């Protein structure tokens, strides 16, 4: 969904740039608090993994393709603030080094591909978790749901931005139908890949899954309150 240069007019590019800068600035402040000894190295990996995943375009309909955008995945793995930074970083690297995604539309792309999918995906993921019974299947299912929904929503936000400052006059109903329709299909792929990656992390290092740290049973997943001794035995943890 990388928007190239020229698709939107200058005022919208500037406005989206300001909005993206504000969002990134906010996330830089909030991310710091969540960067512990597990999340910090993981965040770099998440960014690199999402860069790689962007290259893996899968066919959707005849003549169309999609790839993981990764906003929901990043938010679930390392938290929404750090996750937004991960995807924004990928977009900056893509625009500067690979000429993918316009330079003037970098703000638009950070809003569409990083901020919106991460916020929508994580919100839906958490809401779905709250409704589901505890366990790995629930977490994977919630991850699928959040990631899936995040993509047509981002496509809808593109249409909204285009209505505000699109460079051409096109019927917005047509644009909205085409964008949300094709991205609903791409969203299925987003959901499947996100659930697979989340499932893999759950099977290997479930404690690394930020978004579900409070949702899985087992002593290794308990988050100790700040004042609690860290020398307590696993048995004591389990009993408490």
């Amino acid at each position: 969904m990388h928007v190239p240069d020229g698709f939107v007019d200058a005022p919208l590019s500037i406005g989206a740039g300001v909005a993206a800068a504000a969002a990134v600035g906010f996330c830089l402040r909030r991310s710091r608090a969540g960067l512990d000894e597990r999340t910090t190295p993981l965040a770099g990996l998440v960014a690199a993994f999402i860069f790689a995943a962007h290259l893996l375009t899968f066919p959707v309909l005849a003549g169309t393709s999609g790839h993981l955008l990764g906003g929901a995945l990043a938010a679930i793995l390392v938290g929404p603030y750090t996750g937004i930074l991960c995807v924004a970083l990928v977009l900056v690297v893509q625009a500067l080094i690979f000429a993918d995604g316009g330079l003037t539309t970098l703000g638009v792309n950070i809003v569409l591909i990083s901020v919106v999918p991460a916020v929508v995906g994580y919100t839906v993921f958490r809401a779905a978790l709250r409704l589901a019974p505890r366990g790995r299947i629930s977490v994977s299912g919630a991850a699928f749901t959040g990631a899936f929904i995040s993509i047509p929503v981002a496509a809808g936000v593109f249409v909204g931005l285009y209505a505000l400052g699109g460079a051409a006059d096109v019927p917005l109903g047509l644009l909205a139908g085409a964008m949300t329709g094709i991205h609903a299909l791409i969203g299925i792929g987003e959901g499947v890949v996100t659930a697979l990656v989340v499932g893999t992390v759950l099977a290997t290092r479930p404690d690394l899954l930020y978004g579900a740290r409070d949702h899985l049973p087992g002593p290794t997943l308990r988050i100790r309150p700040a004042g609690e001794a860290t020398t307590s035995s696993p048995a004591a943890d389990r009993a408490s």
Partner: protein
Amino acid sequence: MGRSRTRPRSTVMVFVAAGVVVALFLAGFVSFYASGAPDGLMWVSTEQAPAVGAQEQEHAFSESTFAGYGTEGVANDRLSGAIAGVVGVAITLAAGALLFFALRGRRSGSSGPPDSTSGGTRGS
């Protein structure tokens, strides 16, 4: 309080190293088999609403070494894409590590427990 548990960090590094290997494999090898079809937005803006696509302007860096996820001067398609993919993963990883370790370092050197605001609501 000091860092009382050193094991989790080292095993996180093992996990991260394994993840980096997977990312390099995906970007350097699997990406060759990816679909070359236009993505959703480009499909809409050429097939469905061509007036949108007609406004596209050439990227200022379209002649750069790795533009379009290829490598300038490398004739072999597979190698050209593989180099660009591996370079991209390496740059993103390095930039991410710099960013997040620098951010964390600004937390007054504390290595305390995960903060209480993380992870959303608890005990649901």
